[in-house]
């Protein structure tokens, strides 16, 4: 790209020159025509750097396209989205228009325009081939200076910034300023209009219209005086914000763009007219007789037309016009003599035009057309060169061609991804698949391929440069042969290749193979250069890729060179590694002179200490192939596992036998490494059983024959007892080659060794013959070590469930089934089923600190007993108790054998208790209400007696014994509770009905609260002491506290209590107490119920549980009794009030006595007449409560049954 003038390659945009914004003109604009020289400084009132918005304005205008090689706004798809783009350059005060006609006088200064004007004897442009001072004189076609003129110096639009004075005082001074400005603007306008350049003035002011009232008027005056209109001639710009400035610049450009395009249209038309006139009015013949032919002039005009079309951003027109010019020039080149300097110029124009057509096609998003243009250009020039020089086999041809590829590559680097994608080799043509019907040469590959092409061509160029050069020589773009000899071809090739390498580096691994190829090419060149360090580096980059996918042909081709490179740069590790790799027979066809292992370092070894080189077989193509298999997939602990290590040496025939010093086989999972050392005395049989010795050291040592002929397979069988549970895996292999001056090791990871059907077998030797068996396991190098089968029985003598809070002792019997002595220890672990908490256990007979107990030596087939205690949790749950017996046989002291036994232990409540609270008759009289016991108290201390019966049942009542209890009434409020301690302090078993325990607690409740209370509450707590009766070893005493019972005692309510004092068949004495604990006088109507119903009696054989007498007469029972028992007449004679009104005084109890005489003597349960007590004041019947357990009351009907004994 550097060899071409930038004007030829860059994109042409309409040129806008901006004057008066900066004192530092754009760099490119300074390089005006070399024929012009700056002079005559201007004296106009230009705005300078002191103007506040000057920098902002300058930025707003010049920002944007400078017109590089690739112009993003020119792409067809994007063009509409872009605002008009100008090439904007800033010029200084001393800017001059390029001279129109060649003149001995200096060019015209714009600012100091003189009316004398350019008066030239010649009527030609200074760049025309007709002007003697032109570089094209006399027969050149066109030069870059012409392009440079339109790119840099001759604008389509000239924008001049001027300040209108708003600061100075006095209208006189202002008007003199304005007049100066008008004069200058008129001068400038006149000068530019002569060249058809649009002149635009921008008048800036430091004050806005509001601040300077006459500003509008003055600007109108300026416009009027200069003839510059408001729309596109003279703009005024008051002070404004940066955003407004940008909008101003944008709108200005928008307004001027069509005018700019018109400017180039005019030029295009002009060129076309000249082309049509075909140089008829050409200049007179020049002195030396040579002049540009008509064809040359045509090309000049065609080229100009194309350039102006490009300025107009009409890519399609430009393609066409450049095409015409290209064809003409190609034809014209035929006529140029080889030695002429015009040859190179014309060639360059030809390249330029091809490049422009190609680029315009890319702008039009037509990569296929672009590639076609490229191909046509190459073919045309090739044909031209062959015709002109009769051979194309010259360095200059290849240099030119490489240059074309390089140029294309650099262009494609600038092209956006959607036109030339980098991730695939080329853009799809309509579809993703480019079929065979499409010419393959017409697809445009991305820049990486072009760099590669350029590199390949540069290699060719370098080769041609060494050859003898045929005469005449084409020297386009190349130095003459004597200099070409010293050209750094390989440097250029390397830089091209490295660029290509970078282009293929996509970081996603998508083009790694292409990179490997380029790396290989770079390595080759480096190697030839003698830069071995770099060569080795690139060989390494390349090798990995080919090794990965087993492209051994390519890999083999580079190993030898890589070895030389490694040796030259003294990288011994790399050398050993590569030498190892070269030993593989895979590379035999491409490698001769393979070194024996002893010659790996070629005598360049250090004389000092023995170096050790460890090479990982995964990083090379290893010639040693290994496979390890265990015979079984599972083995019991302490048994011997049998495994086979199969080794195959696939080294090349060229080195003969390979001798390994040792092979170390490593395991994971509890087996020591096995070290097989070579022994010359052993024969190299196909299968060898290894005898392992020295089991105590770091390795298990064995001896075997480790000399391998090419392709030899050898199987080593090992047998080792295993002493660790888990998975045993053969992990790696280290093959050691000990040579006289160094040691090389090859580490083989058995996990990554590829599956080889020939090796993956189990070998059986039988009668000197070897048979193979298929392996069943998918992972034969691993074996699962499972524990040895235990031969002990564990029996726990636990009956029934466990109870909460219990401290339980569980005896165990462990019976040995082994036929030799064992050392036994037992461990206990108790936890709930969900595993949330552990339950403490302890061994009885041990110190209790450890959860294991040593039971010492147990003789064969004998039993041993032990006990452990366990404290149950205080809540119901399910426990599992694991008993783990671990024992060692005396013959195998290292191997522990485990037997476990699980006891499922539900923990439940030991007892269920039901309570009943019934009233009792207080035997003593209540205190007199007339006596004052306590001054604060309203009532005398009345005591009522209650009976709390507790019935205790259990799941397994037979095996539980309650031997003590504690009963306590606490939290008593308002009353005083006195617990009567009568009778034996033990629960009685009700053997009659069931095994349930029953006990009655008598409580005297005395009202001692000064305030009158209706109800008193208390907590009753019962704690039982109990023990198991079914444990052989005797049970410990446990206590069980029942849930607290809430007791409520009604205090005030009147009640009727009934008791039976005599129940003989002669006389049944009923006693009724009507209690009035209130302070009111109560009146009751009392009736002894004697209706017919009552006179019936029921022989009741029904056995009832005493404690539930209140519930026994439910409806069902009653109904069934009525059905079964026939009615009998039975009458009672009685003594007592049949119906009477009873008044009960406050704080007193009335006793009513009834004597019943059964008339029909019937023993057993009889219904007796019952008393009805009716409160006449409150209109309420009072219930009659039984005050003893000698009779029963049906609370529903109020019927009373008495068990009449037959004998008095």
């Amino acid at each position, binding site marked *: 790209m550097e060899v071409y003038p930038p004007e030829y390659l860059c994109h042409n945009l309409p040129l806008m020159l901006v004057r008066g914004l900066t004192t530092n003109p754009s760099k490119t604009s300074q390089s005006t025509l070399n024929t012009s020289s700056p002079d005559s400084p201007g004296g106009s009132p230009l705005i300078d750097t002191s103007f506040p918005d000057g920098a902002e304005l300058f930025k707003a205008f010049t920002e944007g396209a400078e017109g590089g090689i690739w112009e993003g706004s020119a792409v067809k798809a994007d063009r509409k989205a872009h605002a008009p783009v100008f090439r904007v350059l800033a010029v200084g005060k001393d800017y001059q228009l390029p001279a129109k006609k060649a003149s001995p006088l200096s060019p015209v200064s714009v600012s100091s325009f003189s009316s004398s004007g350019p008066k030239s004897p010649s009527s030609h442009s200074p760049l025309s081939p007709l002007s003697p001072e032109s570089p094209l004189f006399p027969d050149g076609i066109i030069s870059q200076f012409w392009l440079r003129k339109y790119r840099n110096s001759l604008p389509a639009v000239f924008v001049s910034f001027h300040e209108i004075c708003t600061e100075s005082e006095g209208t006189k001074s202002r008007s003199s300023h304005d007049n100066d400005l008008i004069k200058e603007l008129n001068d400038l306008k006149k000068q530019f209009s002569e060249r058809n350049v649009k002149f635009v003035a921008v008048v800036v002011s430091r004050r806005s219209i509001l601040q300077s009232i006459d500003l509008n008027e003055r600007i109108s005056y300026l416009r009027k005086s200069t003839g510059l209109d408001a729309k596109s001639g003279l703009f005024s710009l008051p002070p404004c914000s940066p955003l407004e400035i940008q909008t101003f610049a944008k709108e200005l450009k928008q307004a001027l763009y069509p005018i700019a395009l018109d400017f180039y249209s005019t030029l295009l038309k002009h060129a076309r007219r000249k082309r049509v006139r075909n140089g008829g009015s050409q200049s007179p013949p020049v002195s030396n007789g040579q002049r540009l032919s008509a064809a040359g002039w045509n090309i000049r005009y065609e080229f100009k037309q194309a350039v102006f079309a490009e300025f107009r951003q009409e890519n399609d027109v430009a393609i066409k016009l450049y095409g015409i010019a290209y064809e003409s020039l190609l034809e014209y080149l035929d006529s140029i003599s080889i030695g002429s300097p015009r040859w190179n110029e014309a060639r360059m124009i030809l390249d330029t035009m091809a490049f422009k057509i190609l680029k315009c096609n890319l702008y039009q998003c037509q990569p296929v057309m672009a590639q076609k243009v490229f191909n046509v250009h190459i073919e045309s020039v090739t044909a031209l060169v062959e015709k002109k020089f009769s051979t194309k086999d010259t360095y200059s041809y290849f240099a030119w061609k490489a240059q074309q590829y390089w140029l294309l590559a650099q262009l494609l680097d600038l092209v956006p991804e959607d036109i030339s994608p980098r991730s695939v080799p080329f853009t799809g043509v309509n579809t*993703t698949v480019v*079929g065979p019907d499409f010419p*393959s*040469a017409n697809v445009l*590959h991305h820049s990486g391929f072009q760099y590669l092409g350029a590199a390949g061509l540069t290699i060719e160029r370098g080769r041609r440069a060494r050859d003898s050069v045929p005469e005449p020589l084409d020297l386009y773009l190349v130095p003459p042969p004597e200099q070409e000899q010293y050209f750094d071809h390989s440097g250029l090739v390397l830089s091209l290749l490295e660029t290509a390498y970078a282009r293929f580096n996509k970081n996603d691994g998508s*083009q790694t193979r292409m990179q490997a190829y380029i790396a290989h090419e770079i390595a080759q060149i480096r190697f030839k250069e003698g830069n071995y360090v770099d060569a080795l580096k690139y060989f390494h980059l390349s090798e990995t890729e080919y090794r990965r996918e087993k492209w051994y042909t390519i890999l083999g*081709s580079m190993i030898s060179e890589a070895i030389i490179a490694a040796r030259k740069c003294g990288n011994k590790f790399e050398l050993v590694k590569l030498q190892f790799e070269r030993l593989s027979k895979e590379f035999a066809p491409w*490698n001769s002179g393979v070194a024996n292992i002893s010659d790996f370092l070629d005598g360049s070894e250090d004389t000092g200490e023995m170096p050790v080189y460890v090479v990982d077989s995964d990083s090379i193509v290893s010639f040693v192939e290994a496979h390890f298999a265990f015979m079984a997939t599972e083995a019991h602990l302490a048994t011997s596992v049998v495994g086979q290590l199969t080794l195959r040496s696939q080294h090349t025939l060229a080195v003969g036998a390979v001798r390994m010093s040792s092979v170390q086989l490593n395991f994971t999972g509890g087996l020591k490494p096995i070290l097989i050392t070579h022994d010359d005395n052993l024969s190299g049989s196909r299968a060898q059983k290894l005898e392992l010795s020295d089991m105590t050291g770091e390795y298990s040592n064995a001896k075997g024959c480790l000399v391998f002929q090419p392709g030899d397979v050898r199987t080593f069988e090992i047998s080792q007892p295993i002493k660790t549970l888990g998975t045993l895996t053969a992990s790696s292999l280290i093959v050691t080659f000990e040579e006289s001056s160094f040691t090389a090791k090859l580490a083989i990871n058995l996990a990554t060794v590829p599956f080889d059907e020939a090796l993956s077998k189990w070998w059986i030797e039988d009668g000197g013959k070897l048979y193979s068996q298929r392996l069943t396991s998918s992972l034969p190098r691993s074996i699962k070590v499972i524990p040895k089968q235990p031969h002990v029985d564990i029996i726990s003598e636990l009956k029934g469930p466990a109870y909460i809070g219990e401290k339980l002792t569980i005896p165990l019997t462990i019976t040995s089934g082994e036929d030799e002595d064992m050392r036994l220890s037992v461990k206990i672990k108790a936890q709930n089923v969900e595993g949330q908490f552990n339950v403490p256990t302890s061994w009885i007979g041990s110190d209790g600190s450890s959860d294991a107990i040593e039971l010492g030596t147990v003789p064969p087939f004998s039993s041993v007993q032990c006990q452990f205690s366990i404290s149950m949790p205080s809540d119901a749950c399910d426990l599992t108790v694991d008993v783990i017996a671990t024992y060692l046989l005396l013959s195998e002291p290292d191997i522990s054998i485990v037997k476990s036994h699980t006891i499922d232990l539900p923990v439940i409540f030991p007892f269920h208790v039901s309570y009943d609270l019934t009233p009792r008759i207080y035997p003593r009289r209540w205190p007199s209400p007339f006596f004052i016991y306590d001054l604060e108290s309203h009532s005398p201390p009345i005591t009522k007696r209650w009976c709390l019966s507790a019935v205790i049942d259990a799941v397994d009542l037979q095996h539980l014994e309650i031997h003590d209890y504690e009963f306590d009434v606490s939290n008593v409020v308002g009353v005083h509770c006195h617990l009567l301690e009568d009778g034996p302090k033990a629960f009685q078993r009700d053997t009659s009905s069931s095994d349930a325990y029953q006990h009655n607690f008598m409580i005297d409740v005395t009202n001692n609260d000064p305030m009158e209370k209706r109800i008193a509450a208390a907590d009753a707590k019962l704690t039982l002491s109990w023990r198991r009766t079914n444990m052989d070893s005797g049970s410990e005493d446990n206590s069980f506290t029942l849930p607290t019972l809430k007791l409520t005692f009604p205090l005030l309510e009147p009640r009727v209590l009934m008791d039976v004092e005599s129940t003989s068949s002669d006389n049944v004495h009923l006693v009724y107490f009507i209690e009035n604990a209130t302070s009111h006088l109560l009146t009751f109507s009392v009736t002894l119920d004697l209706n017919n119903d009552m006179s019936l009696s029921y022989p009741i054989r029904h056995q009832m549980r005493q404690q539930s007498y209140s519930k026994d007469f439910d409806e069902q029972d009653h109904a069934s009794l009525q059905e079964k028992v026939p009615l009998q007449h039975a009458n009672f004679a009685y003594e007592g009030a049949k119906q009477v009104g009873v008044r009960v005084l406050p704080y007193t109890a009335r006793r009513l006595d009834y004597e019943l005489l059964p008339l029909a003597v019937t023993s057993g349960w009889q219904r007796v007449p019952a008393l009805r007590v009716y409160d006449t004041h409150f209109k309420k019947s009072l219930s009659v409560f039984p005050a003893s357990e000698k009779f029963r009351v049906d609370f529903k009907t109020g019927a009373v049954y008495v068990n009449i004994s037959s004998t008095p």
Partner: protein
Amino acid sequence: MVSRIYLVALMGRENNPLYVRGFAPETASTSHDPDSTDVSSYDDSSSIGPTSAEVSTSRDTELRYHFLAHISLDVFAARLPQKTSDSDFGLLFVQDGMAMYGWMTNTGVKLVLGFASGEIIGSEIRSIFRATHFAYISLVCNPFYTMDERRPIQSRKFDINIRRIVDAWNGTTSTHTPAESISRSSAASPQSTSNISGASTVYYSNTSNNGAIEGVVMSYSGSRSPSPSPSPSAPTSETVMAS
């Protein structure tokens, strides 16, 4: 100009080479020129080892084909995600004057054909791919051939089949007659000492001058199969079979 097959390559599922064979004329010039239609080897003036220049040249040609086949895997990998059901990968890339066309079977075996760039191949190339695929299937289905998908194919029969396909395509327009090609390669190939008859054989009839493949006949008998056309390639095949 009739296109000419210069390279046939098969790559396995794991991108390993199965078969890479070049069919270049012997008298090719050596060039790095990307536009050179003379498909040939690199210059090897600085070749390492005491090999003769001739051997080195042929080896470099072979190597170059390996490189091209290997690079084509990049394109297979890049295009595979967008690929729908069909096997045709079309043009893979043009490099070193070779235009590479790709095809992938359902089992992931990649087929690559190399032509000189700048030529229009014609859609008959698909029948070449199918024929090559068929030859590969025949090889895999052969119960007497132990297939290792990770190793290059070592089958003389397969080699002959591929050569036959290529020669039928290249036809008489080749500078060397197919007979010369085959006999030359047979002599070079160490496996070609015995003739395996009775195995599957693929014949192609070359009915037109532009090398279109029309019919695929499969024969399981060792006897001479009826030659469907007076094409020069069919007798050549028979010659090889008999030799």
